[in-house]
């Protein structure tokens, strides 16, 4: 117990006796964790958007408001005959509006749908494909019919998926590069903070080594100090996230248009735990690197 108290006291003294370095490293860590969190949220959002798109309709043909039901049924029957098509659903103008209402009920940011007097949404045929690779051919065939008085537009969702995948890939790579650089900077700052702490206590370390304290015990206060930096950095990052997540989410939602992106019920808890865990590992890791390099003699 006495040993534990010694370690904790020494760790806190190390942190509090050099406030400039401690605050600097804590803020650097906080900044890095914010980037990390932002990166995770964006990635997760895009992934679930892609998942949603992929599981949904693969092709949509929007229909002219003037098209007769018989014409529409005709087109529908023709599409259903295609062996690459597994299913065709007719979505009426009313259905489309109802969907939008349902969507908006869960989402205050979309504004009041009720104010729209007329129904601006077109009816559509949603086509699911049995053979995903055929989507381009089917889409092209349908596109040839655009302007025939029934079909007004063909939306090729796989293209949207492709674009999203590209965006995700770019964001992943770019995010990882930025994250990597931030991680390096944060580690560098932690390593130096701990280096100064070790220097400040070099007499004590010398005596500990002379009387036969284990390396682990000599290093422990510094590793805890590194973890303190991590915990405080995580606290700041999570506080900023808590305050800023609302606006950021709505911006993201606008960016992704009206896709009902759900990040899952436990996502925020997971994110907070992830940030904290990352911070602890980074703080302890940076401190270990620093202490190890200075004690190895």
């Amino acid at each position: 117990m006495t040993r534990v108290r010694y370690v904790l006291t020494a760790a806190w003294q190390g942190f509090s006796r050099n406030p400039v370095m401690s605050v600097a490293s804590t803020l650097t860590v906080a900044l890095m964790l914010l980037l990390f969190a932002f990166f995770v949220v964006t990635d997760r959002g895009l992934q679930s958007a892609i998942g949603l798109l992929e599981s949904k309709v693969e092709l949509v043909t929007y229909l002219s408001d003037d098209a007769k039901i018989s014409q529409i049924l005709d087109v529908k029957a023709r599409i259903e005959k295609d062996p690459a098509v597994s299913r065709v659903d007719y979505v009426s103008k009313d259905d489309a509006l109802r969907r939008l209402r349902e969507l908006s009920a869960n989402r205050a940011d979309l504004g009041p749908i009720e104010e729209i007097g007329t129904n601006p949404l077109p009816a559509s045929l949603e086509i699911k494909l049995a053979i995903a690779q055929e989507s381009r051919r089917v889409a092209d065939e349908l596109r040839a019919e655009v302007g025939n008085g029934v079909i007004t537009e063909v939306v090729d969702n796989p293209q949207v998926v492709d674009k999203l995948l590209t965006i995700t890939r770019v964001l992943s790579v770019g995010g990882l590069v930025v994250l990597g650089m931030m991680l390096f900077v944060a580690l560098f700052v932690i390593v130096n903070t701990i280096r100064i702490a070790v220097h400040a206590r070099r007499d004590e370390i010398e005596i500990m080594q002379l009387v036969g304290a284990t390396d682990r015990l000599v290093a422990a206060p510094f590793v805890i100090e590194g973890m303190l930096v991590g915990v405080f950095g995580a606290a700041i990052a999570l506080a900023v996230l808590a305050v800023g997540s609302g606006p950021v989410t709505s911006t993201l939602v606008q960016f992704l248009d009206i896709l009902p992106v759900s990040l899952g019920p436990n996502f925020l808890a997971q994110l907070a735990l992830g940030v904290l865990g990352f911070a602890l590992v980074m703080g302890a890791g940076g401190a270990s690197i620093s202490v190890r390099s200075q004690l190895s003699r």
Partner: protein
Amino acid sequence: MIALEDVSKRYPNGTYALRDIDLRIDAGEFVFNVGSSGAGKSTLNRLLIREELPTTGRVVVDGQDVARLARGEIPYLRRKVGIVFQDFKLLQTKTVFENVAFALIVTGHDGRTLREESERALALVGLAQRRHHFPRELSGGEQQRTAMARALVMRPRVLVADEPTGNLDPVTTWEIMKLLIRVNELGTTVIVATHNAEIVNALRRRVVHLDHGRIIRDEREGLYAA
């Protein structure tokens, strides 16, 4: 207890601190290690606590070749070989008692052991009354006795004293020497590196004389100079 077999220590710049040293020190011995500055006394001490490794040869302490110790085993060697220095190396922000207890804390002791063993060591060096003083409030002799208590609280098999009286006046020097002899009488092997001729000549103990890294003399009941 301690055996150096054909030990040489050469520094990267090519100079030899020790050359062809063969030395045996049995458990319970009291040994003066004499010689002028730079003769290799401190290097010898550092080999014993494995602060340095021999370039060639073997250093065996308590049956263990110190060069073969894993890094994790070094602390346990140092719990067996206590050391005190000319400059005491006390922590200025801790009291006498805390300085002594510190050694026990960082080697994993607590509770009653911590208190009782610290008191025992302080009593042994005669500093029980000064336990709440800080090093700056103590005389040089008292500071050295605190350092000795810190080494002895670990109940080491060997106590190495590296110029323990180098900073002390003659009267205090005698106090420290009497204390070292008492520690030896209680069963601890004591090795004292010194160039205080008067002490060595008066006490008539085993003398190992180093000169330019070589042992030039090893006598029972020896004198400082041949």
